[in-house]
């Protein structure tokens, strides 16, 4: 589904990614871990198409298409979803309106008709209930005045409505209390499907107790320095990032 090869990228003139290689197959859940400043979020943003991040080398294919040649909106419509680490507040743009516009953009790209208003509302209500979100959310501006936890739930809600083929969740677990973490994990798990894939970018192992990854990668200095199965995350938790970084130096 996703094939990243020797990906190198720069932000504000500084190399942040230094040759990433990663293959994610349909049905898989990958976790990307690493210390602060290792390039985790940059990788997520580059995959979503952030324009001020300059790709200087390498290639990324998504379902056989050249992802780097696609505009951010085209990537989204093709089934890529980024759950933001810091979802931006957009006062004046209604939450429901955004959800509907996003869903219709995707349907239009797939040659499907626009969603029926009644059907749409029913869908939103169902997903909101699943995410344990209050109905007042419907009338508010996008992320406007949301707490950190509410913003993350909102990201997962959008993901559930859009049903992406590939979801990249950038620290969706950070700042969540244990109850919210369970709800968010439930949302992510509900999307697990042989035809979909999930990339979890996370700093802590905690989320991986609830969403069990198939593979775990450790990012450091802009490259993947170690890969393994879920036990790698547990070992990291025990021994800390210094253990992998030490291994890298040796």
């Amino acid at each position, binding site marked *: 589904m996703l094939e990243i090869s020797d990906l190198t990228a720069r932000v504000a003139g500084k190399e942040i990614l230094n040759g990433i290689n990663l293959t994610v197959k349909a049905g898989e859940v990958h976790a990307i871990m690493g210390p602060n400043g290792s390039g985790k979020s940059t990788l997520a943003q580059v995959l979503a198409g952030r324009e001020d991040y300059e790709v200087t080398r390498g290639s990324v294919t998504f379902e056989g298409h050249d992802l780097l040649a696609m505009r951010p909106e085209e990537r989204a419509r093709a089934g890529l979803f980024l759950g*933001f680490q810091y979802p931006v507040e957009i006062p004046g743009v209604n939450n429901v309106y955004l959800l509907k516009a996003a869903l219709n953009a995707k349907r239009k790209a797939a040659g499907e008709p626009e969603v029926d208003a009644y059907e749409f509302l029913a869908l939103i209500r169902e997903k909101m209930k699943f995410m344990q979100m209050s109905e007042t959310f419907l009338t508010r501006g996008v992320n406007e005045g949301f707490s950190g936890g509410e913003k993350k739930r909102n990201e997962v809600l959008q993901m559930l409505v859009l049903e992406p083929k590939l979801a990249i969740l950038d620290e969706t677990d950070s700042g969540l209390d244990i109850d919210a973490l369970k709800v968010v994990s439930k949302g992510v798990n509900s999307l697990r499907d042989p035809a979909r894939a999930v990339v979890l970018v996370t700093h802590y192992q905690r989320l991986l107790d609830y969403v069990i990854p198939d593979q775990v990668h450790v990012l450091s200095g802009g490259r993947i320095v170690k890969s393994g199965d879920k036990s790698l995350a547990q070992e990291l938790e025990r021994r800390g990032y210094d253990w992998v970084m030490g291994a890298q130096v040796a």
Partner: protein
Amino acid sequence: MSAALRSFETQWRARTPDALQPIREQAMQRFLKLGLPSLRDETWRYTDLRSLAALSYGEAGCAAGGATTGDAALSLVDFKQHAATLTMINGCPLLDADLPVVNCIEINSIKDIYNRDPSQLRQFFEAASDADQRRWVLLNTALFIDGLYLKITGAVATPLVILHVSTGVAAQAAHPRVIIDASPGASATIIEHHVSQGDIAPLNNSNTHIALGRDAQLEHYRVYATGAGATHLDSLDIHQAQDSQCRQFTIALGGGLVRSSLEARLNQRGASLDSYSLLVGHQERHVDCVNIVTHAAPHTRSRQTARAIASDVSRVIFNSKVIVNAGANGSDSKQSCRGLLLSPSAEIDTRPQLEIHADEVKCAHGATTGRLDPDMLFYLLSRGLDRETAQSLLVFAFLADVLTGMSVSSARAAIENALINQLPDAQILRKFR
């Protein structure tokens, strides 16, 4: 002396004196002495009137243009949802036999009132001032032919619309005058809608004076929607008594050169003003807005919310000043001006100012101007919205603070509609509504 000044003097000399002569005389003498404002005057530093000064102006008469009355296309408010429309042509009110009857609003011509009893209106004509922002008010006082005097005596549920129609040629000048006098406890919504017949119109030098009695409430709109060749100099004076509340909307959506000023005085404890400005620069339009709010009594409150958008080669200026007089402790004011540039050749200047002479006050101000927020834009794109839609959504979101404050839904809808036509990607924006 400029050609314009000479021509105004000629008009002045040709007039037949009337019951307001002493007030007019004083105003005209000040005006002639001070001359037209120039770039050297503090509140005029962004607006060059030299081309205007080079013209000689005749009087724009009270021609009763048949086509202008009751024209639905010119109406800003759904006719089922408002109490009445009063039409003024070049400042002259059309007060004929069909004059609507609205409960709790007495509708009169200013001329009729002062011919009967000049003392009744004297309080609404301010003493001649040398302040540069009042220069054109002096001329209006000297030369206005007639105007509307509205006395609100009770609670009026539905909005009253004043349709100002400007018609004629650029070498003419009109001086529309409106007085809104709300009795203690009265409440109303009044919408002043300025339009022109065609792109070219006389120089329009309008003034509105609002006086709110104790506990009175007014929602007032002034909507500039004249043609692209029109010059409009508009001034608004608001005087508020104890516990009165005023919500004021200034909407600049038309005209070639628009100068809009607001001077509010919160004269007694508990008076509260919410001023909203939506200033839209489009094509070659120049919009210069000046607000001066004076807290003249303790425990008075003001809020100013201005949103400026400029596209093409337009220019929008918003200067606001809050003055807290000595002794006006407990005054509470906020100024928020934000500008959004939609073209590299457009320009927005905002300048919030504070002048505080009291001790215990709460005054906040902020001003920002920029382009669309790239983080917001990327967020919307990452959800699959196309770029034009995302940009247009953000433009509307930017204006939401002003638009959502409007309680007259049909006026808001009409204003949004007109606004959309002046933004890039009008077709896309239509789909949102």
